[in-house]
C-alpha cells in the first residue's frame, strides 16, 4: 500500500509540469492578426498580407534570455496569428554553427542567428543564403548590415570602466597606463571580444591589424589579468568593487549593467576606434519553409522588433528607418556612430583562429 502511494505521489509530481500547458483563446483569426500586428510598419504589413502558414513549423536557432523574450513578443505572435508554429532552438552560436554545417544537406533549422565573425564563412561555404531584397526591409538596412546575412543589430566593442578611476572616458591606450596594470579585465579567446582586443593591441603596437606578434606582446604588458570574463555579473561586480578598472566590453552589455545599478560607464573610443560587432540573421540554405523564413526575416528587421532590441538591451538598429531619441539614441550604435565603427578582417581571423588560440592559451592565459 505504501509503495502504491509512493508511486502515485511520484507520478503526480512528474505529471505536474506536463499538464501545465497554456489555454487557447477563441478569437477569429482576423482579430488575432490585427492584435499581433499592432504597431507594425506598413511595409511589413503589406509583405505579410494574405499569408497563411497553417501546418508549417519554423525552426529558429537563437540566443536565450532577453533576446528570446523580445522575439516571443514581437515576431512570434504575428506568425502564430497566421497559423504558423514556431520552435526556438536556444543555445550558443557554436552549437548552431555545428548543426547547420552537419545538416547542410538536410537542414532542420530554417533561421539561424550568428555573429558577424562567423556568418561570412557560413555564407561562403554555401550553408546560409546570400541576403537580398526579396525581403523588402533589406533595402532599408545600412550597407554595413548587408554583410554575411541580414544584420540584426549593431553593437560596438568599447571600454566599460569604473568612473571612479577615470576623469574622462578612456581611450584604448589609457588601458596601458602603468597604474592600471593587473586591473584590466580580459575577454576570452576565441570569441568576438577576444579577437577584437587582440586586433586593437596589434594596431596600437604596430598600426597593423594583422601583426599578431606585436598584438600578443602588447597584451602581455597588461598581465596578470584579474579575470577572463565569461560571466558578465562577475565582471561588473568586480568593476564596481574596483578590482577591475576597465575591460573591453560590448556596448549593450555595459549599459544593461548600468541599468542594473552597477558602478560602470562606457566609453566609445575614437583613437583606433570602436570595433563593429553585429548579430546576424541568416536564412539556412535549402530550408523547408522558405516563405515562412522570409516572413520571419522581414518581421525581425522591421522597426517594431529593432526598436525593442534598442530600448531593452541597447542592441542598435540596423534598419535605417528606425528612429531613436534621447538616452536610448546615445547608448546605441545609432546615427553617425554607425559610420564610425571600425570593421576587422573576420575571414582572416577565422583562418588563423586555431593557431591564435594556442598562442593565446600559452602567452596570455598561462603567462607568468
Amino acid at each position, binding site marked *: 500500500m505504501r509503495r502504491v502511494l509512493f508511486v502515485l505521489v511520484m507520478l503526480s509530481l512528474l505529471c505536474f509540469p506536463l499538464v501545465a500547458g497554456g489555454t487557447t483563446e477563441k478569437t477569429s483569426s482576423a482579430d488575432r492578426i490585427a492584435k499581433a500586428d499592432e504597431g507594425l510598419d506598413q511595409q511589413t504589413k503589406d509583405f505579410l498580407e494574405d499569408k497563411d502558414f497553417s501546418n508549417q513549423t519554423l525552426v529558429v536557432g537563437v540566443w536565450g534570455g532577453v533576446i528570446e523574450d523580445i522575439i516571443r513578443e514581437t515576431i512570434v505572435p504575428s506568425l502564430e496569428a497566421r497559423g504558423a508554429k514556431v520552435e526556438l532552438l536556444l543555445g550558443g552560436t557554436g*552549437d548552431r554553427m555545428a548543426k547547420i*554545417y552537419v545538416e547542410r544537406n538536410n537542414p532542420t533549422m530554417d533561421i539561424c542567428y550568428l555573429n558577424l565573425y562567423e556568418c561570412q564563412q557560413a555564407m561562403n561555404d554555401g550553408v546560409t543564403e546570400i541576403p537580398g531584397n526579396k525581403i523588402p526591409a533589406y533595402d532599408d538596412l545600412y550597407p554595413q548590415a548587408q554583410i554575411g546575412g541580414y544584420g540584426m543589430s549593431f553593437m560596438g566593442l568599447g571600454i566599460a570602466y569604473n568612473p571612479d578611476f577615470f576623469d574622462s572616458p578612456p581611450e584604448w591606450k589609457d588601458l596601458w597606463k602603468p597604474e592600471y596594470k593587473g586591473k584590466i579585465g580580459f575577454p576570452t579567446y576565441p*570569441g568576438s571580444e577576444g579577437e577584437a582586443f587582440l586586433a586593437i593591441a596589434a594596431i596600437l603596437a604596430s598600426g597593423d591589424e594583422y601583426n599578431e606578434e606585436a598584438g600578443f606582446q602588447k597584451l602581455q604588458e597588461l598581465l596578470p589579468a584579474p*579575470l*577572463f570574463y*565569461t560571466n558578465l555579473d562577475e565582471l561588473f561586480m568586480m568593476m564596481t*568593487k574596483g578590482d577591475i578598472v576597465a575591460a573591453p566590453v560590448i556596448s549593450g552589455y555595459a549599459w544593461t549593467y548600468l541599468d542594473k545599478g552597477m558602478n560602470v560607464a562606457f566609453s566609445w573610443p575614437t583613437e583606433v576606434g570602436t570595433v563593429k560587432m553585429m548579430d546576424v540573421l541568416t536564412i539556412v540554405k535549402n530550408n523547408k519553409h522558405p516563405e515562412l523564413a522570409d516572413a520571419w526575416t522581414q518581421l525581425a528587421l522591421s522597426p517594431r522588433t529593432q526598436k525593442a532590441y534598442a530600448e531593452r538591451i541597447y542592441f542598435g538598429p540596423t534598419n535605417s528607418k528606425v528612429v531613436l531619441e534621447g538616452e536610448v539614441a546615445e547608448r546605441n550604435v545609432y546615427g553617425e556612430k554607425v559610420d564610425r565603427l571600425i570593421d576587422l578582417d573576420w575571414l582572416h581571423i577565422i583562418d588563423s583562429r586555431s593557431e591564435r588560440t594556442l598562442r593565446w592559451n600559452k602567452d596570455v592565459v598561462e603567462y607568468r
Partner: protein
Amino acid sequence: MKTKHVWALVMPALLLFVLIFLVPFLLLIVKSFQTYVPGTLISDSSFTWENYTQLFSDGYYFKIYYRTIRIAVISTLAVLVLSYPLSIFLSSMNAKVRGVFMTISILPMIGGAMIQTMGWFAMLMRYGTINSFLLGLHIIKDPIQFLGTELGVIIGLVQSFLPMMIYPLVSSLLAIDREIYDSARTLGARPPKIFFSVTIPLSAPGAMAGAILVFMACLTSFVTPSSLGQGKIQVFGTYAYQQAIQVMNWPFSSSYAIFFILSMGIVVLALNLLARGLRRKRCGSM
C-alpha cells in the same frame, strides 16, 4: 553457466554500445585523420597525420595533460580522505537515521554540476560568502582568490564527487563483520590502530570502486573547471571544448581526444586490475 547464455545476456547492451557509442567514435577516428579547413566544419577528407604530429610538436598539450591528471589525483585523494570519517559516522548509525543521512549526502550528485557550480560561484567569488565571512571576522585582510585557481576547481570537484565515494564505501563498511571490531577491541587495539589495520583493508574494495568513479569523473569534468577555473585553468575537458566548439577544429579535437583516451585507458586498466585483485581477496569465491 554456458558461454552462449552469457553472450545472450550481454548482447542487448553490446548492441546499443556498438550502434550509439562505437560508431560515432569510429567516425571521430576517421575525422582525426582529416585536414582542418579553418572556420568551417567541412573538413578536407584527404588523409593526414598532421593532427597527431601537432600534439607532440608543442609542450603545451602535455602541460594540460599533466594538469588534468594532477587535479584529478588530488581531488580523488581529497575525496578519499574526506569520505572516511563521514562514511564511518554513517555506518555507525542505526538503519533508519542512516537512510536519511545517506539521502542527504547524495544531494550534491542529484542536484547536478550546474547547481553545485552556481552555488560555489556565489561562495568563492571575490566578495562571495566565504571571503565576506573571513573578512568580517578579520581572519584575512584581502579577499582570497578562489575562482580561476586550481584550488577553486578542486574544491568544486571534491564536493561534487564525494557521494560517488561515500556510497560504495558505506556499503563495504557495513559488510564488515562487527565481531572483528569487538575482538580487536578485546585484544586492546586503540581506535587508530583498528582503523588502519581493520577498517581500511576490509573496506578497500568499496574505496577502490569509488576512487575509480571519482577519478574518471574528475578527468573528464567540464562544467566545474570551466566555470570555477574561469578560463584560466585549462584541463582536458575545457581544451577539448575550446577546440571543438569554439575553434571548430574537429579533426584536431578528435585526435586530441583519441590520444587522451588511449593514454587514460592504460591508467584505468591498471586501476581496474588492482580493484579486481582487491575484490578477489575479499570474496574468494570469484
